[in-house]
């Protein structure tokens, strides 16, 4: 164990201010309006987990409706009141459930919960900074997110229920309050919540980018950053560029709804009454929405990719295969993700020529994704794999990413999309590739960095149970859905009972619902493990996973400013695992090459001629010595 945390108090602290006040923080400034990135990360995580549990319960509610469309459950009326009259969820509330489930999962859990948690926790710790570039803005970011969550959930309390036009809220459905109950106050609250959410996301993103660019410790050049940082950095850039467009779209929608403009509306006769809108285009909203919406799915998956890469490398005791290729593929995905949004709109009436163009760009983005997958497989090859729960979840992420990614090749093909668009095939595709894969990446991160966050270890056995039940459950839920889609069963249908051709899928629906309930129950194992481990978990050591990255050189007890003395200097890339000639099977980033002469390779000195000279000298003396013997 060789940490280079030098306890030299003569050196001026970069963060004198924070250090002075760190002992007499009030409860309010330590736990509530905290400006410490580690505390903010925990706030994001716990809020994210809470939202995830809520969204999961919503999904179980609509799954019950899908499995038993003819049965009555008086309990539902007791729980949901007017939203489930006569023991059955109403058709409108079913759509609300679907909508809010999607919104919470995509934005509140997999964007804020994932990026918010791990960018806040890992960026300063892994690049060697004492905190974020702007701790105050960081705090605001969390509280905007919290307010957005409260407003989103409060829409369950309005008379007509929450927004129900689908998480994509296409106008005119979402623009005309009379088109459906959810398009009334529920929709207004949705839009307010989203504006606050984007504000939060932007404040976070600007912070992440500026921290990564400006506050790296000595020696930490971009090519020595762990892949988690690369992924979170590029994710933040995506968010900064894409989210404002959503706000633009949302603001125009607010104008259409409340101030009588016609940005998205034209030629509408609702319930036999002509509406005074002319000249707008609903397609415009779809363009604005998906200009965010598609980068959004990469905002969701890229942090999961980064986390999985890191976790798999640590637990295979092997360097990540093709580090440069991994970074370039992330950059490629980032750039390409801005020019593929039209593949959500092949059959919306958009110019078919545009459809052809978007199809080409879409299938190009599969190349970097394929490279990443192969590199992960190569990382496992001839590794020395330790199955920690984090490792299992990272592997699950890869498995889901393959399964869900491959069906993307069908949907990205405009000709095939004609028949698959908006069917259960799409539901299966994105729940695997960005839903399950991203949540597994997030859980991998939680299990892996729990010791860093709370100073305690989580229970491994419960982690195993949680993983296998969730992993199997997710496949049982989503695999059969592909075939429903291939039979032309549309998504967002309240009941399959009205179609003779769909009734044969009812048994499959029942099966899926029970698989989902099983997977949901498995989350109790996680929640129990998570909560109890915070309080009574085994105390963590400084570097429990024998990992190379900088965060494990900080003391287990948190302190404002992260390192008690000087910030350590970085000398090497983060993936020197199982290097031949080294004593241990890992060499932390803080160990200079001069201390590891026996394991140095010419490759380590590609841009360092002096070092190479030293190495050559060392190897020649070694050879000379051997000859003497």
């Amino acid at each position: 164990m060789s940490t280079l945390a030098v306890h030299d108090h003569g050196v001026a602290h970069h963060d004198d201010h924070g250090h002075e006040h760190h002992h007499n923080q009030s409860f309010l400034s330590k736990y509530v309006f905290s400006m410490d990135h580690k505390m903010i990360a925990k706030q994001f995580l716990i809020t994210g987990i809470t939202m995830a549990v809520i969204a999961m319960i919503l999904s179980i509610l609509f799954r019950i409706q899908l499995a038993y469309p003819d049965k009555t459950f008086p309990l539902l009326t007791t729980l949901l009141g007017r939203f489930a009259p006569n023991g059955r969820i109403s058709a409108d509330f079913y759509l609300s459930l679907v909508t809010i489930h999607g919104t919470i999962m995509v934005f509140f859990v997999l964007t804020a919960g994932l990026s918010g948690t791990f960018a806040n926790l890992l960026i300063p710790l892994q690049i060697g900074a004492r905190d974020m570039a702007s701790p105050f803005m960081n705090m605001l970011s969390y509280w905007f997110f919290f307010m957005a969550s409260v407003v989103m959930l409060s829409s369950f309390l309005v008379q007509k229920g929450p927004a129900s036009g689908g998480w994509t809220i296409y106008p005119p459905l979402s623009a005309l309050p009379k088109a459906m109950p959810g398009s009334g106050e529920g929709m207004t609250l949705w839009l307010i919540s989203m504006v606050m959410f984007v504000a939060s996301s932007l404040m976070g993103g600007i912070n992440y980018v500026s921290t990564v660019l400006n506050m790296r410790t000595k020696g930490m050049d971009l090519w020595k950053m762990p892949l988690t940082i690369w992924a979170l950095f590029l994710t933040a850039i995506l968010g900064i560029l894409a989210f404002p467009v959503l706000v633009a779209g949302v603001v125009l929608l607010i104008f259409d709804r409340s101030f009588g403009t016609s940005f998205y509306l034209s030629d509408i006769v609702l319930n036999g009454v002509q509406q005074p809108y002319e000249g707008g285009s609903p397609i415009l909203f779809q363009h604005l929405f998906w200009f965010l919406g598609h980068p959004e799915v990469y905002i969701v998956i890229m942090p999961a990719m980064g986390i999985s890469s890191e976790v798999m490398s640590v637990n295979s005791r092997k360097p990540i295969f093709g580090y440069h290729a991994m970074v370039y593929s992330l950059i490629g995905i980032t750039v390409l993700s801005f020019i593929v949004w039209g593949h959500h709109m092949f059959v919306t009436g958009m110019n078919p020529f545009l459809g052809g163009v978007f199809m080409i760009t879409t299938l190009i983005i599969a190349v970097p994704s394929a490279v990443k997958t192969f590199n992960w497989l190569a990382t496992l090859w001839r590794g020395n794999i330790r199955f920690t729960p984090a490792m299992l979840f990272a592997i699950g992420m890869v498995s889901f990413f393959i399964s869900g990614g491959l069906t993307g090749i069908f949907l990205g093909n405009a000709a095939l999309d004609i028949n698959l668009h908006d069917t259960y095939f799409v539901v299966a595709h994105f729940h695997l590739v960005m839903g399950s894969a991203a949540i597994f990446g997030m859980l991998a991160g939680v299990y892996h960095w729990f010791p860093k966050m709370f100073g305690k270890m989580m229970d491994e056995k419960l982690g195993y149970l949680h993983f296998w039940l969730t992993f199997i459950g997710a496949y049982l839920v989503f695999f059969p859905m592909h075939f429903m889609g291939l039979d032309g069963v549309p998504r967002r249908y309240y009941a399959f009972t009205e179609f003779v051709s769909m009734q044969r899928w009812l048994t499959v629906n029942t099966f899926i619902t029970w698989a989902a309930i099983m997977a949901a129950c498995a989350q109790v194992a996680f929640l129990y493990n998570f909560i109890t481990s915070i309080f009574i978990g085994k105390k963590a050591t400084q570097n429990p996973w024998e990992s190379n990255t900088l965060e494990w050189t900080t003391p287990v007890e948190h302190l404002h400013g992260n390192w008690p003395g000087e910030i350590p200097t970085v000398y090497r890339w983060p993936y020197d695992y199982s290097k031949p000639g080294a004593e241990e099977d890992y060499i932390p980033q803080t160990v200079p090459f001069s201390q590891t002469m026996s394991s140095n390779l010419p490759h380590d000195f590609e841009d360092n001629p002096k070092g190479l000279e030293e190495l050559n000298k060392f190897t020649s003396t070694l050879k000379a010595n051997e000859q003497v013997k």
Partner: protein
Amino acid sequence: MHQNTEYQTDIKMGFRKFINSKTLLSFITAFMLLGTNLLMAQTEAAASSGTQSDAMQVDWTGVAYYVLLFFLVCLGVAVVGKILKIYDLTLKIQGKKGMKWNTVMAVICLVFLLAGIYGAYWSFTVQGSMTLPEAASAHGVKIDEMFTVTTVLTMIVFFITQILLFTFLFQYRHSDKRRAHFLPHNNTIEKIWTIAPAIVLTVLVVFGFFTWQKITNSADAKGEKASIDIDITGHQFAWELRYPGKDGKLGPKDFRLVSAANKLGVNFKKRSSFDDLQADTMYLPVNESVRLNIQALDVIHSVYMPHFRVQLNAVPGLPTFFKFTPTITTADMRRKLDDPKFEYLVYCNKICGGGHYNMQKVVRVVSQAEYQSWLSKQKPYLTDQLRKELHFAAADQPQTGSQNRLALNN
């Protein structure tokens, strides 16, 4: 030390006894039986209760049963956990290494792989056979060919990568005796697996692009026989059909003209409007090119006819069309599927409100002769009521020059 081991063995035996104990087993059985009885009673009650007040009685025993069952499962997990922990500790006291969890997980990975392959195979054969029958349109056949090619290619990749993933996990499970192979990169192999998918995808893109162009670049070419124009308009929550009359032309529409009798807002200033027909079922002549003019009155709907591989959104303010040629009559399809009740359908595939899940219309593909005889029986769009209405309202009809406006910024 010897005594200690003996003591541990005693504990182990004790637990074995505990697990094997018949009392426990019978208790569980009794509990399950009770629960099943309760459950049955609940479903029976739900089934027999015709009246609402009965149905609204929350069956708290049933709820309690499920909650109890859940806690029992948790208890079971906890007991198993404790047993494993004690077993682990006994191993350690005996001087052995504890449970080899890495090996256990590696074996489970292998079992999952085998079970997964079987499950995928089962799903492909059983659920795969429940998918749509062969395409009933000319362009649909091409889509299906593309689908087959894509499926074969992706499934090869799917099985190879998943098998590699899980066998690697098993094969390279942790061992204290060896070290991982230090392999940071290999440019040759990385180039190969960048270029290989790029080539495969290029092939798919090129085929897909041309198929897509062929399907969508479908304005009637010169000299080609004109397609049959059929108007389909979506509104909450139904489809309206309009067929052209003898002139083969549909009259223009304007949303400002919509009224109770003129549901679609057909403009009767134009001659071509007068002989338009309305229909309840979409009849299509087999092997004739059909042009569906797709519109919506209120919100976005989507015309989805999966058997013909046809889908296009119906967008208010943005008229679109989809041209296709049905190739299999309803009667033929019934014979092929051995299902005398089979019907082609058109239904809505874009969320449009509470009734979205039931917006269907029957489509019948028939021979040319049947089609003509059916068409001759259809009622004119210009009903008596509409005639009356127009007579009185004729003077008010606005002089619009902007019929069929396209939304500008699509």
